[in-house]
């Protein structure tokens, strides 16, 4: 099985006009035609330009996060490279008593961790059930979810705020409140993982059931081990979402600064507070958030791509 494929030095090609079989050098050995080379060059130019545009803001962000707060300024300035590189901003974020950054970071991390576990559980339960079990009301559930999805999510927030307030899960209780809100309705986002489950042959379930497994055992022993890519995808999505959420977090934690998540906290530095003084600190905070998330994402990129393309194709 593992014999290496030899790349042939020549391809055999049927020349249709001459009606003869010829030996031709394969593509990677053939000298490209001029037209082909010109096209490829322009594609490279475009790709390089795009790469610059795509990366520049992040590079700038990093530069500015290293600008010295003490000797230069924390505001937006008219130059890019710091005159003096320093860790002032980071030091302030992590150690200064008036900085709540660590607290926000912790809040978000807690929310993200809980969501990664609970939300994944909810989403997989729903998608598995709707994909592989047949029962009365299945179509109805899917239609109801479809209709509910057409209402803007924030609409529910007004009611939920008052509900949560009754339970003490706003402001001081914002962190558990956020977890509750993210997780409770997350079952509605079953679409992509259902698409994945749909691709696993049904005969596997049937075979296992004949072999003596209950449906719960089929789920645990057969389907879950096969669903690893989509499980990772779901965890990744559930973990990443809370880092970017502004709407719900800002509303639930309204006015209670220690209970913000990073998005809300950094947002007010830039837009509400005197952002000029906090700009480089925002940059440093952004770097601290973005770096671990980006590494995580790139490491699991494969699963993300699988989930996204699968979901879009199956609609």
């Amino acid at each position: 099985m593992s014999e290496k494929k030899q790349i042939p030095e020549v391809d055999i090609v049927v020349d249709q006009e001459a009606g003869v079989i010829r030996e031709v050098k394969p593509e990677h050995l053939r000298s490209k035609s001029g037209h082909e080379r010109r096209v490829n060059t322009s594609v490279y130019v475009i790709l390089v330009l795009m790469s610059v545009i795509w990366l520049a803001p992040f590079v700038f962000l990093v530069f500015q996060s290293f600008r010295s707060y003490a000797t230069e300024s924390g505001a937006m300035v008219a130059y890019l490279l710091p005159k003096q590189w320093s860790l002032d901003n980071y030091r302030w974020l992590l150690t200064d008593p008036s900085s709540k950054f660590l607290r926000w970071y912790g809040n978000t991390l807690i929310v993200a961790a809980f969501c990664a576990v609970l939300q994944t559980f909810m989403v997989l339960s729903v998608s598995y059930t709707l994909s592989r079990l047949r029962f009365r009301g299945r179509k109805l559930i899917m239609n109801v979810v479809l209709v509910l999805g057409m209402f803007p999510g924030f609409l529910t927030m007004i009611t939920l705020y008052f509900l949560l307030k009754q339970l003490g899960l706003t402001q001081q209780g914002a962190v558990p409140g956020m977890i509750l809100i993210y997780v409770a309705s997350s079952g509605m986002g079953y679409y992509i993982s259902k698409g994945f489950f749909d691709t696993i042959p049904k005969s596997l379930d049937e075979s296992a059931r004949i072999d003596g497994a209950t449906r719960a055992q089929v789920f645990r022993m057969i389907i879950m081990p096969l669903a690893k890519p989509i499980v990772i995808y779901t965890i990744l999505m559930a973990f990443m979402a809370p880092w970017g959420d502004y709407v719900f977090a800002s509303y639930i934690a309204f006015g209670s600064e220690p209970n913000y998540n990073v998005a809300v906290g950094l947002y007010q530095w830039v837009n509400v507070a005197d952002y000029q003084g906090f700009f480089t600190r925002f940059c440093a905070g952004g770097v601290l958030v973005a770096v671990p998330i980006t590494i995580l994402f790139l490491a699991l990129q494969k699963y993300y791509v699988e989930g996204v393309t699968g979901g879009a194709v199956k609609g």
Partner: protein
Amino acid sequence: MTDLEYFKLSKPQKMLRDAGGFFARLPKGIGTGVRKLGMLIVNILKGIGANLSDLVTTFKDGDWKTRLSYLIMGFGSFARGQWGRGLLFFLFQTVFNLYMFFPNASISGCYYLGKLSTLGTIETYKEGRRTVYGDNSFFILLYGVLTLFFIAAFIYTWRVNVKQNRISEQLLKSGHKLKTTKDDLDSLRDEQFHKTMLALPTLGVTVFTILPILFMILVAFTNFDATHQPPSKLFTWVGWDNFRQLLSSDTASYGDTFRHVLLWTLIWAFFATFLNYFLGMLVAIMINKKGIRLKKMWRTILVMTIAIPQFVSLLYVSKMFAADGLINTYLMKWGWISSPLPFWTDPTWARVTIIVINVWIGIPYLMLIATGILMNIPADLYESARIDGANAFQMYKKITLPYMLFVTGPYLLTSFTGNINNFNVIYLLSQGKPLSLQLSGNAGHTDLLITWLYKMTVNDTNYKLAAVMGILVFVVTAVINLIVYNMIPSVKNEEDFQ
């Protein structure tokens, strides 16, 4: 006209015919819809009738255990040894009764139900320095809705409880054994596994989505706003007033602003969806082109905008384009411009900037999707096209594009709906600014319905209009979905290309 004649027509003729066909089918479609609705109503009525007559026969034919179950839920199950089911029924009835007739009247279901029609009559007032709380309209409405839910659930459960008795009686009569509580528990892992799996998600969605949405739909018909805030003030039903206020063009109304915002929402959703779509596909084709090296690297670079949380990237980019941001300052430093470009201060500039920045965020996502699909297009399609003499552009037009559109049709639809509700991009970039005196209700030129809704809620606590707006967003989304579902064949005929 036969199919053969149709094939001979030129392209415009075909389109004309297709369009004609659509409108020709329209009355029939509407007719079918009306008929279906009528059938539905008839069926519901029939169902109710059947249930009622079944209740009577069950009572007449039933033994004393069954009859007693009409009053005490779960009694029959208990008496026949199914104590698990019996216990559940009985518990449910107890909780329901407790809730409805709680001795402390001000927190019982009946109290809320009774007040639902007025949303409270007793105002909160001050007696010296002490505040005496009256009715709280908010809770009356919320718990009123909850009580209605509860009553519906009770009727359903009661009906199931009676039905259980009948089924059990029949089973026993025909010599079968009844399921024991252990059987019932076992079946939750097997035949009834869907109930186990869906219990928690259903509860979550009911309490955290359905209930709030129903509540907000009702709020749209009240005057719940900054001047009617419980507990100090009452609010009450006002009928369609809020819709009138939001839609009509009187000076005191928001009609013009609403239309302005709605138009921009649709323009935005259109560009955000299709511009990203085509550019993303283009990039995917470029990266996947034969002979381009480092494919993985290009992809990874682009994917950075997905990986980095949007509030970091968008907030930073928003500042880059500010009047004192990097772009303006450098352009001025280099002497290309003398005053800052009005990225965020001129309505048109702001709109274009937002769409362009959204391309930066959106292309990678579509590039990934398109890459996945491009690789799935059967190679023999291209080979046969090449043999037929097609060039690269023709192949794109005749194979790649139709295939992509076909496969991603449903995705485009969800993406369009998603963009209508794309809060993050707008709010993190421009907060809806620039504001304008022409627009009322604090709306700005780049506000979408959803960000305007947010502002109304958070800044103005104008819940009634927020609720109306939410409903209108739903209507817009639903209408678009309906049209697309009926017009685009790919959403319906999923099999064609497979």
